[in-house]
């Protein structure tokens, strides 16, 4: 499974800016190949911006960034991406299967010709891997949030990526589905030796599966194991404000004192 012994992401004093506004800076971290990293932080802190940098959709404002051994560039077929979205338009009456297919050849000109059989096989395989066979032929707009999320994941997987960037795939899902989807992603990542960055609001459904968390807050970034980063001391220092981390009897973590902070950063 050792595709490469080099790290998947290397960021060195990286800074991100949107238009003239600096969002965060001095981010120095490494993500290893095959690692599952949860990206956490308040709204507007620049989590999605990090993914845009990795995808090459936004140039770094300062510092250096390497993704899979290269500078980030748009159209990197080694990255599977599922952007944040509220819901797919109910009136989108296109089969889920065709949606998935675009992950393979949606960026090619013209209509599909030649090697269509092998592409169909890849689509089938991607749909099977997310267990979406039962509804892959239904209009995607009429599926439930969890079903849509699986098909979006299948689309990202169909391109045979080495890295998955998932922007809030658990948002708008109920708690049970959050756990199911999180476990599915972890399983797929293990099976395909994928490096995963997954943006989430709540660490708890992810605690059993993440290797490390990347916390984006207050203009900076911190990375480490959940138990190291999500602590009263670490978060208080990162936010430069009194933050308290509470634990319940199941080992769940709750961060208290962020509400005022996130309000400041809301776009």
């Amino acid at each position, binding site marked *: 499974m050792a595709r490469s012994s080099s790290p998947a992401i290397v960021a060195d004093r990286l800074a991100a800016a949107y238009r003239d506004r600096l969002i965060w800076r001095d981010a120095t971290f490494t993500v290893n190949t095959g690692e599952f990293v949860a990206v956490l932080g308040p709204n507007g802190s620049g989590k999605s911006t990090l993914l845009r940098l990795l995808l090459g959709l936004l140039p770094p404002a300062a510092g250096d960034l390497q993704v899979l051994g290269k500078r980030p560039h748009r159209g990197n077929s080694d990255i599977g991406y599922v952007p944040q979205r509220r819901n797919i338009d109910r009136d989108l009456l296109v089969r889920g299967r*065709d949606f998935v297919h675009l992950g393979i050849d949606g960026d090619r000109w013209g209509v599909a010709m030649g090697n269509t059989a092998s592409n169909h096989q890849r689509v089938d395989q991607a749909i099977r891997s997310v267990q979406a066979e039962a509804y892959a032929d239904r209009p995607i707009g009429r599926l439930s949030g969890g079903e849509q999320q699986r098909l979006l994941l299948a689309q990202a997987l169909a391109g045979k990526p080495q890295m998955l960037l998932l922007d809030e795939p658990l948002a708008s899902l109920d708690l049970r589905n959050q756990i199911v989807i999180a476990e599915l992603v972890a399983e797929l990542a293990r099976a395909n030796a994928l490096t995963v960055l997954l943006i989430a609001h709540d660490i708890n459904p992810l605690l059993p599966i993440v290797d490390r968390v990347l916390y984006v807050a207050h203009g900076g970034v911190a990375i480490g194991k959940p138990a190291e980063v999500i602590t009263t001391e670490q978060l208080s220092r990162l936010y430069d404000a009194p933050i308290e981390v509470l634990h319940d009897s199941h080992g769940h973590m709750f961060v208290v004192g962020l509400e005022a902070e996130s309000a400041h950063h809301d776009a």
Partner: protein
Amino acid sequence: MLEAYLAAAPYFGWDLVRVVQELFRYAFMQHAFEAGTIVGLSAGVIGYFVVLRSLSFAAHALSHIGFAGATGAVLVGTAPIVGLLVFTMSAGAVMGALGQRLRGRDLTIGLVMAWSLGLGLLFTRLYKGSANPAIGILFGQIFGITSQDVAVTFVASAVTVVLVLALYRPLLFATLDEEVAEAKGVPVRGLSIAFMVVLAVAVSEAVQVVGVLLIFALIVAPAAIAERFTTRPSRGLLLAALLAVLFTWAGLTIAYYLPYPVGFFITTIAFWSYILARVLAPTLSLPRERARELRAREEQALHSP
């Protein structure tokens, strides 16, 4: 009046060969069928993407902007199609460049549309000839099409269809999933502009058949119907083109026998076909069973380890 007309009417009956011979007896009918077929094909093909991209109002607005162009062209003494193409293509390029920001701008589009009709009205008044060209542009003039018009239409239509097919996959990607398409390197903005310009060409052609005001019948209705019968984009595209051609043929045939305008028949057929499709609607016919099935599945998943 109708009885007198029918008494002198051309042959209509069960002898299909004779009916076809009758329909193609006159050059104007041949040209109408040629142009109608060509226009139907391109209108249906582009229409599928218009519906998928929720641009039907923009398409409608383009045709109205074309009215100002066409009447302006008549005023300065050139062919209406030239003015149509110039105005719709420029407006299309601007709309395409605005892209996403155009969504929810119904007000702005509506105002531009109204102003274009106003301009067209002014040009019509300034034109010293009759008002017939304006009426033709508003409601179509398929029976007045010359063989030269057919040739121009053929070229424009071929360009439309070839371009849509050349852009097919990235356009579908950008339409269904703009953000992922952009990340995958699809030139989303360039495609948006290209699509609106191609749409402008298709609209300008369709105006010749159904006119500015009835454009929905050929561009939007067939695609909206197709979408309800297949969830596969490739089939939807073909079905939309087929329906647009059938509507045009049916409208032309009926209008040959009855003394009423062809635009009325085409729009009537389009409208009632859409109603019928909504009633039948196979792609959406099972919401209730589907909800039940979904609940059962989630229930099951909940109780499994």
